[in-house]
């Protein structure tokens, strides 16, 4: 059974399932990484609940369920981390 929802995201690149109700989508916008947190509790009506930006182009990403940290490695060799649950409280949060 497949349920598809149009999220309207720009240049989505990768997806990661972090829980039964949350999905992270990694995007590339204007040369920088961007992450969207998507609520999939209603599979036929998934919604983007928050977005967050990394100021540099990314090279690799990794997430962990506990303590719900997101790690972005940039092409310049620097790392940016963020708390997945912080993203839900505000949009356009920069990873620091």
């Amino acid at each position: 059974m497949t349920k598809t929802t149009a999220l309207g995201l720009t240049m989505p690149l990768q997806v990661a399932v972090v829980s039964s109700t949350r999905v992270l989508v990694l995007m590339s916008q204007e040369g920088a990484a961007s992450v969207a947190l998507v609520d999939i509790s209603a599979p036929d009506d998934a919604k983007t609940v928050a977005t967050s930006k990394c100021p540099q182009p990314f090279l690799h990403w990794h997430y962990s369920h506990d303590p719900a940290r997101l790690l972005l490695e940039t092409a310049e060799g620097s790392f940016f981390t963020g708390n997945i649950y912080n993203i839900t409280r505000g949009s356009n949060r920069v990873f620091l």
Partner: protein
Amino acid sequence: MLQSTSETVAMLEHPLHWRPSGNLIASTQQLPNNRHDVVFFERNGLRHGEFSLPSTATTPIQVVDVAFNAASNILMVVLAPATVQLWTTANYHWYLKQQVDFDAPVSAFHWDAEVATRLYVATDNDLHTFNLAMHVLANTAISEANPATVSVIDGATLLVTPFALRNVPPPMSAYSIRTEAPVRHVAYGPTGLVAALLSNGSLALIEVQNILYFNSYLFQLGL
């Protein structure tokens, strides 16, 4: 000095690219019923395989160009007005691994001469640099219920095989899932959920049920 000439191929089109490894020459061919093929020739001019580009009955395909990367393992097909497809081959099957639909017409495209997995695409608005990497889409969850599912992207079809239950060799698969647009990336959830990111910006959620366990029955018929 002329070495060889191929037989006449009807509706052969303008794209022409010699694979850097030297064994194939790629071009495209129009066929009836809105079919459009990428065709290959050997160095002696003989036909050597082909594959069809995905098309719809209403929208005809217009191929701009084809080009292999420097390592000869990725074939880029540029479609008008703003689509780039990346194809790879394995086991004599061509897979549409990625499709990128830009928001402006593609004006130029070029593979990096030194880094074989780097692709430059210029549109009327932006310059895009793609760094490509091969990635195995496997379910690595630490769970007894993990059926060791591996997915293979083939355009708008996701080829899925739970290797803990069925050992199906590629290019075949245990089962396939059709999506409304080419698949870009796949992730697995903790409870049999498969999330497929599509090239049109959509998210497809696939609930995989009743495939983890197969029951077999032996009936003895009394005669």
